[in-house]
């Protein structure tokens, strides 16, 4: 239900492939939305979630029922636009309260043509996904019966290469003001800085912000960029970004990744972590309902220490298929899945979780320092 008590609400439906229909009211753009339905348990950070490219092709529900309380602000975007295919909430706030807010959640969704639904029993939806696994769904203001029929004919999530829909068209340089065309000079001046390439398979701006804050020259390159082109840019290190979809579909990226490993220090995050594993011959598999939230405990096996992490992934690396040399460095304490790997010989480590947070706990920013430490050591 919209928090306004206006009587002019339009019924909307979330239709799931298991046949269940969840009634609510339309918000955002009044168009149909189609995708894999997933839930995220973060209690804050909806703006970051909406703009996280890893959610491309997905209808996202937040388990926290009150969404939009602090509006939308000009600073907290994680990419150029909304990436979710649709947004499912219990209640959206159309009277947000925050000094930085310049529009409501509903206005933001409308402005980008993204559909939403509110008033849904999102806990019921979450329980369904938890018990039966994630599934395809359709958001519609039309007939739910017709929607169910159409849903069966629509493409499935794991059949789509979603990276192509989110990756940058051209390489760009990150500055304090945001993305700048590549080739322009860094305004910051000063000493020549370490150049870090970030392969954009669906990156979040906060990765770039955190690298930049650590004194790096940060250049984002499109997913298709060949290994030669990347190496030709003389990077001190390469970071493989997070991104959406099944890594099995990304042979064209995996091939390039294979060629850079061992030649430059590499850190992989999330999809980047999976791509590294696949490049070295390991398998990935789909989780029943994934990990999406800001409260996942991850243990560093080397130290025994436990970190609370932000996560957003539906696929995981199969530890039994890891090649010699690539070792599991971190595990998820909830289900024991692989949360990080480290290579014994190469300057290479990966994490399945999001050290860049945004949204989520900032406890793991130290990982970027470890990456830059590895970069420094390698380039010595």
């Amino acid at each position, binding site marked *: 239900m919209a928090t306004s008590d206006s009587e002019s609400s339009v019924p909307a439906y979330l239709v799931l492939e298991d046949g269940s229909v969840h009634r609510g009211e339309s918000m955002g753009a009044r168009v149909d939305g189609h995708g894999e339905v997933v839930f995220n348990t973060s209690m804050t*950070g909806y703006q970051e979630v909406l703009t996280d490219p890893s959610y491309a092709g997905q209808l996202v529900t937040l388990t926290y029922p009150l969404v939009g309380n602090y509006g939308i602000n000009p600073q907290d975007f994680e990419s150029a636009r909304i990436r979710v295919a649709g947004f499912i909430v219990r209640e959206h706030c159309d009277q947000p309260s925050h000094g930085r807010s310049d529009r409501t959640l509903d206005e933001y969704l409308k402005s980008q043509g993204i559909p939403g639904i509110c008033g849904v029993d999102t806990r019921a939806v979450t329980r369904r996904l938890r018990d039966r696994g994630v599934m395809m769904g359709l958001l519609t203001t039309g007939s739910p019966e017709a929607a169910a029929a159409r849903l069966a004919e629509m493409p499935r999530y794991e059949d789509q290469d979603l990276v192509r829909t989110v990756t940058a068209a051209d390489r760009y340089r990150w500055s304090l003001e945001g993305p700048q065309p590549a080739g322009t000079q860094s305004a910051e001046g000063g000493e020549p800085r370490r150049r870090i390439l970030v392969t954009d398979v669906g990156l979040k701006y906060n990765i770039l912000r955190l690298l930049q804050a650590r004194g790096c020259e940060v250049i984002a390159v499109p997913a298709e960029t060949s290994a030669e082109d990347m190496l030709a840019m003389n990077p001190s290190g390469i970071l493989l970004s997070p991104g959406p979809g099944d890594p099995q579909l990304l042979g064209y990226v995996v091939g390039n990744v294979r060629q850079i490993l061992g030649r430059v220090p590499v850190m992989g995050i999330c999809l980047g972590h999976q791509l590294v594993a696949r490049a070295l011959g390991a398998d990935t598999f789909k989780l029943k309902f994934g990990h999406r939230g800001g409260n996942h405990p991850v243990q560093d096996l080397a130290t025994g220490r436990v970190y609370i992490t932000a996560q957003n992934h539906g696929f995981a690396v199969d530890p039994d298929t890891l090649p010699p040399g690539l070792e599991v460095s971190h595990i998820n304490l909830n289900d024991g899945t692989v949360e990080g790997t480290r290579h014994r010989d190469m300057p290479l480590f990966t994490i399945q979780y999001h050290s860049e947070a945004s949204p989520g706990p900032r406890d793991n920013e130290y990982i970027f320092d470890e990456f830059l430490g590895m970069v420094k050591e390698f380039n010595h």
Partner: protein
Amino acid sequence: MSNNTPPLEKVLVIGSGPIVIGQAAEFDYAGTQACKALREEGVSVVLVNSNPATIMTDTDIADHVYIEPLTVEVIERIIARERPQGVLPTLGGQTGLNLAVALSDAGVLDRYNVRLLGTPLETIRKAEDREFFRNFLHDIGEPEPPNRTVNSMEEAQEYCDEVGLPLVIRPAYTLGGTGGGIASTPQQFQEIVQSGLTLSPISQVLLERSLVGWKEIEYEVIRDGDDNCITVCNMENLDPMGAHTGDSIVVAPSQTLSDKEYQMLRTASLKIIRGLGIEGGCNIQMALRPHPLVEDALQSHWEPDSDYYVIEVNPRVSRSSALASKATGYPIARVSAKIAVGKRLHEIPNAVTGKTGAAFEPALDYCVVKIPRWPFDKFPNGDRQITTQMKATGEVMAVDRSFEAALQKATRSLEIGNRTLLWEGAAAEYEKAGKNAEELLGPNDLRLWAMMSALRRNTTPEDLMNRTYVDPWFISAMQRIVNMERRLLRETLTPDLLYRAKRLGFSDQQVGTLADMLPEQVRNLRHDWDLRPVYKMVDTCAAEFEAVTPYYYSTYEQENEAPALPGKKAIVIGSGPIRIGQGIEFDYCSVHAAWALSAAGVSSVMINSNPETVSTDFDTSDRLYFEPLDEEAVRDVIENETVDDVPPPSVVQFGGQTAINLSQSLAHAGLPILGSSADSIDVASDRQRFEEFLSRLGIPQPPGASVASVSEALQVAQNIGYPVVVRPSYVLGGRAMEIVQNASELVRYLTVATEVTPERHVLVDHYMEGKECEVDAICDGEQVLIPGIMEHIERAGVHSGDSMAIYPGLNLTEQEVDTLVDYTTRIGLAMGVRGLMNIQFVIQGGSAYRSPHAPSDESETTVYIIEVNPRGSRTIPFISKVTSVPVASIATRVMLGETLAGMGYSGGLWPRQKLAAIKAPVFSMSKLVGVDSYLGPEMKSTGEVMGIDRDFSGALSKALLAASLSLKQGDGVLLSIADQHKAESLALIRELLEAGCKLYATEGTAAMIQATGMPVTMVTKLLTESYPNVVDVINDGTVSAVVNTLSGDTSVLRDGFYIRRAAVDRRIPCFTSLDTARAAVEALLMQRGSYNIEQIDAYLKPAED
């Protein structure tokens, strides 16, 4: 934990003592959980607490239970006996931490090689001493508001001249911020600083740049010995900075913080707990820069150097951590206890999911609202302004899927009459209490309703924000509630409209009021339209994992997760928020009822609204519904638990008056009640029926009647003779009960103090000044078991909850005991009691004050019944502990149909134990400015302690010690005795002199003492005339106790008020009953402070000598 320290095989856990404002049931909850958690780890637990009304002092919770005063000397004796390797003080509130510091300072910890667990000593000091705290924050680079610590008035004035007002004043080392405040004027500044310096045990206060109006945000953080840290929960105070968080409406999780802000404060919190080196839980309070519109309204013209400031750290479990535990399902105390003995977070299983570990952060998929429960329904004339000094006695919590619904349910949970958010009486009540209604929007106990009223009167949200500094988000939500009220007033009720109203938390009663229907009609309409609440689980993980906790809340949504429990079951109706008159004792009973049901193979279904308690711990009952205790919520739960049209029965005997009041509605709705029938309850509660009942049995009661009008009252009083005791019927804790001396007083009472109408009767009884006694008893329909008789030290006229009670009735004659047993047995059987009852008696004839050491003549006495309560009373925990009869448990089994004989009990008086035990009340008067502390028929105490020993004098010494009422040899004592008590007071005066006390007295009293030739110093009552006056001798420490009795004529109350307030503020004993004072001086004469220290079990065994 390093490897060379000895393993922890035995740990001493320090409880928090009596319930006082600032330290309530949350520490029983935390301590009980911790004891269980430690024992799971194979640690032997020694527990000490002076409060018998706690689950933690049950002998099966810890291995060695001591119910003894919480003093350094007592704890040293316990340590010497038990030789624990560690002491865990972090579960005993500020009392526990202060004792830890004192034990260390006294060298006890070193002497016995005891390790302090949980929080390092340095950290306790850092958190409490402002100077240390400031240095600490500076060292770790966390921002704190500009401030200065001062040790004198001169230093304070200097700083004030530098930075200007308003300034916050915080005394060091006081409970619940006692003595603090915000000063906006020079005069306020002088007063608060002076009082703060006095109250601080180290004469130190902190002056701090006022952050009034900023957002107040709290984080609950846990750290283990490996430096792993998590945050359990954050909370946002609806009332911005300026109101003590214990007195604020609190929402979890935060509502108006972006992820960037949430994480900024979370990161700061982790840095702080790491810096402090705490192993366990910690509460961190921070101020966050408010919304720009609020900032404009504040007109502070101050550019802060940070977006947030760290305000305070509680390096222990706290009221907030109890709330966070209940709000999230994450058991902070349990985890903290395990960490204290060396476990790491990920090694501790998450008891909620049964699958995951404790190393994660709970995700909420609902909104939680806490509202404090203030005692101003009892003390309407107290200072109702909310400041940095906490005044609430308890709190309620409500959970729902929208803020509006949670707020409305929490309001219903407060149980202040039937007060919903629709209540419009705030202005009238404020004015009636002599306050300026203009101040209603300042922080006070009525502000929530005042804000709603203002919105209804078209105050704009902006204007309301300008006057309250409450964030616009919360005000918008209130406006949405008002908008729905308008729709319900205006529109025809449709299923859609009703559904929307229910989703905003409107009760059937509210809908009925607005839509011009009876609540029952709304309920029927709901059923016709199939609008029923569903129940969702609090599972720590927002449904991500399947959970095993049976902890639910209601909401209006699609999916119900709580299908009716299969098999036999019963509903236990809890006792709601802790308030004066209905305290933790009732929660104790509810918990035992739930346990007894489960043990008997009957699933226990608990309903309660109080987050502080053991009863709302997720593993206390087979199923927990966190709901308001009103008719609608309880009936909804019963319907949800109904299988094949058979509703489960309800247990109403343990939830205090809350549950008893519900019994009539439940019976009316045709719902079954376990134990005594609603009709039996009605006989005891209806004055007319009760009188007929007693006269049929030939048992005397003081003459009186129930009246419905002023003229009727005057007639009755005339007939029975003054003085009369007057009180509204169906109330608890002697609320609005008074002793009235004449007709004009009676008229005042009936028009000002209460309201008498044909619907709301007032009871008028002849007041009998005599020995008061009470019994708790269990009746199974065949026999009546009386576990013990309690004899009050104070004569009738002092509320039983405020009286000291002696077990086993040492000063009663055998004939009197026989009469009490006979009356109790006959009443129980004739009334048809199944389960518990409590009877209060007054014995006329003989002397009102009796002592085993003072000879008296009780040959010609008559026993009268004052009242019968067909339910568990506040003395159940006490009597259970001193007799080892598990009263609540037996009563529950009786309600299920078992017989006393079948359980191996016989009727009559349970063998009197060879021990003496005294229950003493504890007050929180120093927190309640403007409240008079004299004892009367209206209950005022917030908690109790117990002194138990092999003989009366030891028990009395310990009860007084634990209640801070002890006298010492050579003490100066100030006497101000009303004329009618002067003759009687001579015995006391002689004893005081015998004990070496130096006497000071007001004019009349001094004259009397001098006339008898005894030494006394006269001090004037006139505050302006000469030095020293009565207040001076209190403030300068000349006297360390006060005896001040009242004439009973309320017009002269004011004279003594300053004396009593000064004594309360100095924290010295203030006796307003000669009886209590005599007990105190006799304890001093008899025993000179010597007593035994034993495990509670040991007293119950016959002494071996």
